[in-house]
C-alpha cells in the first residue's frame, strides 16, 4: 500500500513543476526558445544551417554542434558530457539528409539551475529547432525521474528533493503524434511508437524494477508534456488574414 507522499513544494510525486515555453525570444538569432520547469530555466539559441561541415564529419548529412554555457564559471567535464548527450539526442530527431554539408550550432545557456537541467535543455533545444525551421522527423520531450530509498518514484525532482534520492534517470521520448493512419500501423511490434525511448541517462544505483517503473511513469508524463508542447507550438502559428 503506497502512502501519500508530498514533495517539498506541495506537489504529489506524479505532478510536474509548472512549465513555461516561449519561442523567438532573442532578436538576432535565427531561432531561439526558452523553457522553464519550476525554477530551472534554460535558453537555447540556434544558428543555421550554415554552409560547411567540421573536419571529419559526413558530407552527406547535416552536422549539429552543441555548445553548453553554464550559469557561472568555465565549461568543464560535466558540460562536455551534456553537450555530447544533447548532440546525440538532437541528431536522432533531425532529418539530416535534407541539408547536406551544413552545420547547425545549438548554444544552450543555463539561466537558473534547480535540477532536471538536462531534460530542460533538451526541451528548450527541441522548441528552438522548431523555431528555426530545421526539418524534424518528430519532437522530443524529456523528463527526469528520481528513485528514493523505499523504491518510490518521483517525477521532476528539484534540487532539495534530489538530495534525498538514491538514483535518478533522465528520459527522452518521442512526442505523441496525430495520424490519419489506423492505430496499429503506428505500432512497432506490440508497443506504440510513441512509447519508444530516444535517450536515457542514469545517475546512481537502482534495481531493474525501479528502472522499469521509472520508464512507465516517464511515458505517462511524456504524454502530458507532448500535449503542452503541441498547444504551445499551435498558439504561435500566425493566422493568415
Amino acid at each position: 500500500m503506497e502512502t501519500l507522499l508530498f514533495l517539498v513544494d506541495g506537489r504529489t510525486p506524479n505532478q510536474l513543476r509548472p512549465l513555461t515555453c516561449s519561442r523567438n525570444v532573442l532578436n538576432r538569432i535565427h531561432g531561439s526558445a526558452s523553457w522553464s520547469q519550476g525554477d530551472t530555466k534554460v535558453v537555447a539559441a540556434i544558428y543555421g544551417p550554415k554552409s560547411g561541415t567540421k573536419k571529419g564529419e559526413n558530407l552527406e548529412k547535416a552536422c549539429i554542434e552543441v555548445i553548453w554555457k553554464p550559469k557561472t564559471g568555465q565549461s568543464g567535464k560535466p558540460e562536455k558530457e551534456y553537450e555530447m548527450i544533447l548532440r546525440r539526442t538532437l541528431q536522432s530527431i533531425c532529418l539530416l539528409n535534407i541539408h547536406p554539408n551544413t552545420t547547425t550550432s545549438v548554444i544552450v545557456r543555463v539561466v537558473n539551475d534547480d535540477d532536471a537541467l538536462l531534460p530542460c535543455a533538451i526541451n528548450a533545444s527541441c522548441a528552438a529547432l522548431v523555431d528555426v525551421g530545421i526539418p524534424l522527423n518528430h519532437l522530443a520531450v524529456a523528463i527526469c525521474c528520481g528513485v528514493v530509498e523505499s523504491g518510490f518514484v518521483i517525477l521532476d525532482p528539484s534540487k532539495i528533493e534530489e538530495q534525498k534520492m538514491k538514483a535518478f534517470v533522465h528520459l527522452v521520448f518521442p512526442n505523441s503524434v496525430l495520424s490519419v493512419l489506423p492505430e496499429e500501423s503506428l505500432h512497432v511490434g506490440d508497443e506504440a511508437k510513441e512509447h519508444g525511448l530516444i535517450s536515457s541517462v542514469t545517475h546512481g544505483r537502482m534495481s531493474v524494477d525501479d528502472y522499469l517503473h521509472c520508464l512507465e511513469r516517464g511515458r505517462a508524463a511524456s504524454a502530458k508534456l507532448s500535449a503542452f508542447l503541441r498547444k504551445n507550438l499551435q498558439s504561435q502559428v500566425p493566422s493568415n488574414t
Partner: protein
Amino acid sequence: MQHEKRSLTRNCTIWCRSQRHMEEKASASPASFISQAVVPGDVVLDLTNFSNHTIKLGGGLYQNCDAISVMKSGELKFSKPNKYWVESSQKRYVPCVEDHVLGIVVDSRSDNFLVDIKGPALAFLPVLAFEGGTRRNIPKFEVGTLLYVRVVKANVGMNPELLCMDASGKAAEFGPLKDGYMFESSTGLAQMLLGSPTCSILVALGKKVSFEIAVGLNGRVWVNAESPSNIILVSNAIMRSENLSGVQQQIMVDSCFREFKDL
C-alpha cells in the same frame, strides 16, 4: 500592377516548392488535418488507398514509407487538385526555383558574384546574367550591394543560382536597388505582403503616403520614399504588422500617422 505580377509568382512558387514530385496511390481525404496546425511527426496522408493519383508536396512534408509526414511546424494547406504543403514562418530561407529574393553581394569572382540570400549556402550570380550582358560590360557590384534577383536553380547540396533577368531575357526591375532602406523580417511576413489581393497594410499605407517597395521571399524588404521620415514610418508599420489581422493593421497604420503628426 507590380503587386499583381509578384503575387502571381508567389502563388506558383508555393506549390513549386516540391522537393520531389511523387506518383503515389492516394486514399481517403485527410480532411481532418487541412487548415489545422500540425507539428513534426504528424502523419497527414495515407498513401495506400490512393490509386493512380499524383500528389504534389510542398515545403514541410516528406514521404515516410507509405505515408506523408510533417517535418515543420505550421498550418497544413491544400490546393485543388492535389497540392499539399505546410505554411510556416521562419527567419531563414530555403531556396526554391522561381522565387524572387533580395540578395546582398558578399564577394565577386571571375565568373560569379557570391550573394547571400539568407539560405544555408551562398548563391552564385553569373556575371553575364544581365540583360545584354557580355564580357565587356560586366557590372561592378561592390560588397554590400542589394540586388533584386530570381532563383533559377536550387538543388539539394549545391549552391543556388540566381539570374538578374526574367524568363525572356529582359531586365524587368531586377538588378541593384539604390537608395531606400532594407530591413529583415520573417518569410511569413514576406508571403503576406506578396499575397493577392493586396494585403491591407500596403493598401492602408498607400492611401497616406507614396512609397516604393520590393519584397523578397527570403524575408528581406526594401522601402524607398521621398523623405527619410516617410521611409521610417512605412518600415516600422510593416514590421509591426506581422501578427495583426486586416482590420488591426488598418487601425495600427492610422495610429502611426497620428503619432507622427503630433510630433
